[in-house]
């Protein structure tokens, strides 16, 4: 479920996924660049006469996530639900939970957008079933004062001496966050940049992805060589893109066609 403004939202499959990018010089698991993309459009019977690409839509991306993962399955342990602020600890723009980018297209048939109006997010993975992760996310224009209020709550001390504060429930986040969602998001795509001189980019990509994030068998593989692509595509690509071959390994069976 997605709670944002007054719409009923339909998640857009394919675009909604965890992504990993493995660069040619990535050596350690920590070097892998992770992203979470989430896209949804307004739905419900009242929208049946409006084509989906002309409806209000919400695009959300958490990029530069820096998880400590043994392999991709460890995404299920991600927990950036850090509303309990330590004293004097500033909200970090580039924390391990990633950088939040939100675009909201509120008007039908218009490219008018509200951009990056949500600056703070807390999020976590609540569960995993095979390649699907249940993600909970709350985002705020400025979460600072809310987090301060929560942190000022009474602390309970457990029998073993740990200090705990009451965890606000989902209703609290639905009411107080600008955006709150609990959705199933698949482990989607791993993009591996392969140097031009490798003999088999696909095999190279599979080997690299196995070593760095422990992937299994992908459901689909797409290899793109921008240097060999048509002139129109070639012209749009900067040099640093053209110098490598891009191998996309798809694990959810979905890809943008």
């Amino acid at each position: 479920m997605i709670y944002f403004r007054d719409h009923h939202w339909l998640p857009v499959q394919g675009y909604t996924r965890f992504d990993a990018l493995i660069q040619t010089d990535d050596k350690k698991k920590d070097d892998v660049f992770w992203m979470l993309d989430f896209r949804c459009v307004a739905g419900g019977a009242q929208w049946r006469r409006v084509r989906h690409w002309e409806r209000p839509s919400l695009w959300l991306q958490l990029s530069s996530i820096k998880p400590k993962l043994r392999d991709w399955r460890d995404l299920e342990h991600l927990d950036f639900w850090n509303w309990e602020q330590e004293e004097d600890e500033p909200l970090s723009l580039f924390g391990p939970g990633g950088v939040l980018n939100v675009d909201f297209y509120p008007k039908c048939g218009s490219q008018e957008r509200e951009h990056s109006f949500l600056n703070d997010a807390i999020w976590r993975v609540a569960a995993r079933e095979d390649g699907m992760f249940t993600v909970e996310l709350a985002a705020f224009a400025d979460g600072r004062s809310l987090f301060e209020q929560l942190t000022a709550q009474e602390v309970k001390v457990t029998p073993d001496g740990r200090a705990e504060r009451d965890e606000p429930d989902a209703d609290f986040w639905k009411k107080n966050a600008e955006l709150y969602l609990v959705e199933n998001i698949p482990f989607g795509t791993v993009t591996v940049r392969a140097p031009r001189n490798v003999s088999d980019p696909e095999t190279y990509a599979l080997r690299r992805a196995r070593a760095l994030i422990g992937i299994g068998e992908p459901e689909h593989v797409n290899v793109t060589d921008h240097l060999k692509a048509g002139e129109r595509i070639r012209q749009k690509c900067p040099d640093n893109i053209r110098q490598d071959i891009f191998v996309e390994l798809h694990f959810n069976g979905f890809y943008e066609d």
Partner: protein
Amino acid sequence: MSWLQLHGETWPVTDDEADLRVYILAPDAGCPRVSWDLSVSHYIRPENPPAGHPGIDRWLDIDLGGLILNVRDWRQLAGLEIRADAVWHDTQEFFGPYGHSHNSPHVNVHQTILKPYADSAGVEAGRKEWIAHDFILRFGSLDGWSFPCELDAWLIPKKEYYRTTPETPEETARFAEGAPDFRLVTRATFISGNVDLTRADAGDPVSRAREVLREEIRCDEMLRAELNWMLRQTPDNEKIVPMPGWRSHVHFHTPPGNARMEKGAPAATSG
């Protein structure tokens, strides 16, 4: 047999019948897996066409695709009635694999009138299209692979259908007001389908597709199974090529669909 009425005009009865097709997505689709399409073309042919006549006066193509019917056995279509009001439409819309939108089902009616008939009947030649989201679909008792079928629909010209503002709550709440603009009575026959499979089933996709068909809609008949592997572009984007050993889909016919193929009728096409 196909009987229909469009905007009050009763068309001549024809021998046409509706086709029912099933589409079963792979288990990782993340959306309802089983959907049904219903389509019929109603052709009016002149009795004694002169030489050079196209042999058809006019026709209607009617289709109603993407129905999520939630039946675990295809025979349960017997006696099923769908009243496509706003509550029903709310249950039918989602995004499917590859980010493709699955709009809530609409009745699409395409009318084509050819010039010779238009000249003789004093009507306008050409194509017209209507869309209906208010419709009532009823299936009768099972007869072999067929069901008697009735469809009532409240049409909106396609040119006026799509808009850039949502319906008001009052508009959404209205349903089936007045007499239907379109009524169809015909026989719908389950003729063919398509089963999507993951890479895990690449060892023997056709056998697995048979199992899936049995599991999902209790159908044991899969004739003329045709295996198609997932496609991809070559690295230079020049060609689209199949990927044997990867994901696949299996297209098949039921006995009536197979009989049509053997008679040389056009093959049913899959999406």
